[in-house]
Every structure is written in structure tokens, then in C-alpha cells.
């Protein structure tokens, strides 16, 4: 569901600390038909131009609060609403170069009525980073 719509073009940018790019961020909507509390979110993997990012390299920002994936797994009271984008920050020193990038995102959702590791959605978008 929503594979072709879950990655947003707007907001695609590098993240800077002390003037240096420490990574980049992507706005991501759920691919599932409802919002979920963060503990229901499964693995997230981001690939840009062939380079893969996952696990400890990712931070999720929902409602202005930022979580590692491990912290998200223990967070049962913050809700990622349906149709509302979260910010996924990928920590990779140097960030991405300005220009067009091939971005692929796989996201998992683990509702209890579905067997583990079944709901996984992969979306792809070619989109441009300015700075």
C-alpha cells in the first residue's frame, strides 16, 4: 500500500552541525492504512544511490521528538499518524551531494493480527537535494 506515495520530495535535505553536514533527512509517511504507536514500527532501511543505511544510523522524529529505532520500539504512547510524515534522519558524515538521487525506502509495520515480518513496503523515488 502507498509504496508510490510514502516518500515525500519536499524536505529532502542535508542536516548540519557546526556548519558541517552530519547526514540527511527524508520525510516519510506510513505505507499502512492507519497510524501506529512507535512500538508497532518495524525495520526501516534507506538506500541512496546504492548505499544502504539502517539501524543505529537512523533517527525518527515524530511530533518534534526524536528517537533511535531501539527507543521507538519501547515507545508505546507516541503516535505516527496516518498521512502525516515523520522525519527520518540518516547519520552519515558529509551528507549527500547536491543533485538528483535514487532513493529507496523499505518500512515495516508490525500489527498483531499480521504474522511477524509480513507487512513490509518498499518505495522508490528519484529526487533532488539542493543543500
Amino acid at each position, binding site marked *: 500500500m502507498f509504496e*508510490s506515495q510514502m516518500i515525500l520530495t519536499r524536505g529532502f535535505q542535508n542536516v548540519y552541525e557546526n556548519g558541517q553536514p552530519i547526514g540527511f533527512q527524508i520525510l516519510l509517511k506510513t505505507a499502512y492504512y492507519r497510524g501506529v504507536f512507535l512500538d508497532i514500527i518495524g525495520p526501516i532501511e534507506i538506500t541512496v544511490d546504492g548505499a544502504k543505511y539502517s539501524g543505529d544510523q537512523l533517527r525518527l522524529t515524530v511530533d518534534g521528538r526524536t528517537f533511535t529505532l531501539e527507543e521507538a520500539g519501547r515507545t508505546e504512547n507516541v503516535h505516527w499518524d496516518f498521512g502525516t510524515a515523520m522525519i527520518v534522519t540518516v547519520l552519515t558524515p558529509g551528507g549527500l551531494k547536491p543533485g538528483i538521487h535514487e532513493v529507496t525506502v523499505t518500512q515495516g509495520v508490525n500489527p498483531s*493480527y499480521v504474522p511477524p515480518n509480513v507487512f513490509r513496503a518498499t518505495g522508490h523515488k528519484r529526487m533532488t537535494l539542493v543543500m
Partner: protein
Amino acid sequence: MTKVTRRELLVGTSAVALSASLPGQIFPAAGGGTAGKIKRGVTFYSYQEEYYKHEVGVEDCFAEVASMGATGVQLIAEEMVPNYPNPPQPWVDNWQAMMAKYKTEPTNLDTFVDVYVGGHRTMSTEEAAETLIGQIRLANRLGFKVVRPTTGPVEQPATEMIERALPMAEKYDVRIAPEVHAPIPLDGKYINSYLELIHKTSTKHMGFTVDCGIFCLRVPRVFIAYHTRHGAQKRVTDYVSKAFEDGASHDQIVAAVQKMDPSPADLQCARGSLGYGPVTNKPQDLARLMPYIYNIHGKFYEMTDELSEYSIAYEEIIPVLEKIGYEHSIDSEYEGQRWTQDAVPTDSFEQVRRQHVMLRRLFGEI
């Protein structure tokens, strides 16, 4: 109307038979008949894609329901309720105001009790019941008289959780109506466990939500076309379609496809067939669930140009519902978009409208 048999409906004569039975004037003047006692409604789930894209908001959905002369409004709480499960009071006030403005009624609040907490831990029965009670309170705030909690595996009843929540269901006058969803058989453990609970407690606050996807007589062709676009082979999809129609079990279908040198899409197609039927379910088997059916999900995947559902014989279901005295709402639940959105733009509103013309026809209103 011309009697269309189950088999004829499925072998392609349906278009001719149904159009022959349609009156020339499909849309009568306002104030047309309201023969049946079954009410028409819509779950806003049907409009998920337009809502997701922020093309419409909740009020647009209310207005659309009203424009079809439908009255039932159903909601997936975690799809559209802000700050779930505790929406701000102004939002609740607006929700009630929309109900009054559009002359609609809340039918069923669909909720999830994620008992496995995303695989991180398992809720105790007590905690699951407390979660459900929170959802009952939300239903009460929004005016819903029915709540549908989905818990663990689809075919596994949650009798202990529901029994614990019954006193609060009675207090708030909200019926707990777990869903009878594909691939649940109407004569199996799921139904029997809940009927036993109803009889044991004599409660009037527990019953069923029935999803018409349990009456699929064939897998949706939009489902097959999706998998074909993604690499499924014709020899496999033909097999899955035919085996399903012939009543092969899900395990049989998956096992057979595994021996067919399958592509990933072939396997996904075989496994996904679990989401429909089984064909052994017959509408008349709903009689033993009466009077405990409190809501019906008018599940559909594709309304054809002949204003008929491709996989589900509503032409059989509606007369049975009338015969067994069902008098609550049947709420359109469009789910075809997930099989078409990769290829063509979605128009949920058009699809739901087609189903409502079908319902009016089957109710004898037009």
C-alpha cells in the same frame, strides 16, 4: 429482477443478466423508495487514499456520505482521530456537529488492540482489556454504539479480553463486535467461541462485525492484475484463481505454487489468496449469528461498469440479510485501491458511489 445464480454470476454472464435486470432510469427523482430496513453507510477507510494525500478532510467524507443519501459513518480510529485515543474536545465537538449537519449516525468504531506490541512483548489479558476499555470510552465520546477490536491473529478469538471488558461495554452501552474477516469459516472455532461467550454471559453487549470479503467466490481480478504487473506468471495466477474457486485450501494453494518454480510475486499471490473467502462460506450461514450481527463491512475491491462487485455476490448476500432480519448498517469498505494505485489514479468516491447504486438496486429502491 432476473434471478442470477451463483455460478452464472461468476462465469461472465453477469454483465448481461444484471444490465437486463436494471431499470432504464438508474437515478430516480429525489425521494425515491426506502423499502428495506437495512441502512446504507460508509467506512471512511474507503476514502483512505484521498485523505492520506490531504485531498479531503473528515468533513468532505461526511458530505460525500450525505450526498449519496447514506446515513452510516464508520471510522478506523487510528486512521483519522487526532491524538488517538484521546482526541481534543473541540475535535469531538466538531465530529458531533458533522453528524448533526449531515444527518448521519456513527455505526462502528474500528480499533486495534496490538497485543504483541509490535513483537517487543505480549500484553496480559488485563492490559489488553484495559486498552479495549479505553477504546470503548472513545467510542462513547464519538457516539458509536459498536466497537470492532482487532487483536491477535485473525482467526484467533479474544474471548478472555472481551469478557473482562463487558462490564464497561454495558456501562457505556457500546457493543463489542469482533470482526468475522477472511479467511474465517462461519462454522468454526472463532464463531463458536464467541457464541459460547454470549450464551454464557447472556450479554447484550457482544456480537459480530461481518466483513463480506468472507463471501468472495473468486479472488479479485485487480489482485491478480497487480501481481501480474509485479512478475507473477499467468500459469500460476490461473492456477490460484481456479483452485480458489474450486475450494482448495490456502495451504494446498501455497504448497502447489511452491512446486511451480514460482517468482516472488507468484508466492505473494498464492499467500495473498488467504485474504478472501473461503468459498465454503454461504450467506445463509449468517442466520446462526443473528441477532448478534451489529455491523456489516460492505467490503469490495472492484465495482464493475455493470454496477456489480467482481468477486462478491452481493446479489445473494443482500436478500439473505433481509430474510434473516438484519436491520443495522451495511457500510461500504473499498479495498481495491491497494491493487490498482501503482498503475492508475484512485477514485474511491466513484467506487463507493457505484456500490451504493448497487445497494439501492438490491434493496428494491430503484
